[in-house]
């Protein structure tokens, strides 16, 4: 099992606009690392880079202290997006897609899909049309789809934005369960959620890491003034 995902001095700009400025962080297995920050802080860009879905302009990504290419990174990780993207077809088709493209034998696919759907309380949803589900149910399908391929690194972007408490609870339980056996990085601007779920919290502000602490210290003894303001809901 991989034990550590590390970003070293990662920078990314779009059309000259700096989205990430020499960001460094470490995320360990069996712990939930949350990246928090206001909208536009660069959280999604950072997650996409950690998932191997975006090229960085500068810096490197390391797994267990070994530098890794973008392609190799993509083969070890998967990402759940804020907007759940359902492919046409049933819930089963969606969850099974990752297994099919990774060459899992069809007799194993069924049991793995069932197991993943159970994790997100969607047993018996296999035959439902994925695009006709509620947004909360779609997000749970997206989580199941990511869990079922059993990647060592799971990156989750704003998993419960605009979801009701029932769906939020189910997703949070699935996240906690998933984190036991992998490196899990979560992006959120929901501070109570970060507090509930995380072991480590990283505050990203205008593309830079300004605080990286254990969850308790982050919320009770922030070092940076901007973090204190953010925690108090006063940061613009």
């Amino acid at each position, binding site marked *: 099992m991989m034990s550590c995902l590390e970003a070293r001095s990662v920078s990314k700009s779009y059309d000259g606009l700096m989205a990430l400025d020499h960001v460094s962080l470490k995320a360990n297995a069996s712990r939930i690392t949350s990246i928090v920050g206001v909208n536009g802080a660069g959280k999604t860009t950072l997650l996409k880079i950690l998932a191997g*879905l975006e090229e960085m302009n500068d810096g490197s990504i390391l797994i267990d202290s070994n530098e890794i290419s973008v392609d190799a990174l993509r083969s070890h*990780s998967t990402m759940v997006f804020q907007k759940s*993207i359902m492919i*046409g077809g049933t819930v089963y088709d969606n969850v099974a897609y*990752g297994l099919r*493209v990774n060459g899992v034998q069809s007799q194993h696919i069924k049991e793995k899909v069932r197991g993943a759907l159970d994790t997100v309380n969607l047993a018996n949803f296999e035959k439902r049309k994925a695009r006709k589900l509620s947004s909360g149910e779609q997000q749970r399908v997206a989580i199941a789809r*990511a869990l079922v391929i059993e990647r060592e690194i799971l990156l989750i972007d704003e998993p419960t934005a605009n979801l009701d408490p029932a769906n939020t609870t189910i997703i949070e339980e699935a996240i906690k369960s998933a984190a036991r056996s992998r490196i899990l990085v979560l992006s959120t601007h929901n501070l109570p959620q970060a507090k509930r779920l995380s072991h480590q919290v990283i505050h990203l502000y205008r593309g830079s890491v300004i605080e990286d602490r254990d969850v308790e210290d982050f919320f009770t003894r922030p070092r940076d003034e901007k973090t204190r303001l953010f925690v108090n809901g006063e940061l613009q």
Partner: protein
Amino acid sequence: MYTPYAIILGQCILVTPIIVSFTTSALESVDPDVRVLARTLGASGFQTDALVLREARWGVVLAVIAAFNRAFAELGVAMMLGGNIRNVTRVLTTAIALQTAMGDIPLSIALSIILLSIVMTLSIIVSLARKR
């Protein structure tokens, strides 16, 4: 000229722009995030393209149906390149034109109804299949 192959070639040239424009439009309408999703789930470049094509499949089917309907109801190409030779290059549209010219209006109307029925049946089948 004046062979079934000439008609086929002419119809192909006629419908190619329809197929290309409808298919391009269908592919462009697929959510770009589908590509990103496929990549993060481990799909190769080819598998990603296949998924995008699958997502656009009804647009592609629509392109084929539109092209078929266009070609099926086309008179000019069949008449010019086929010559409307009995048992060789006579098709429904050229037969309708011939019967109309000969003044056999009931037969030309009957043939027109057959043509319309085929086109409409095909469209209804596709529409029903899409709803399932």
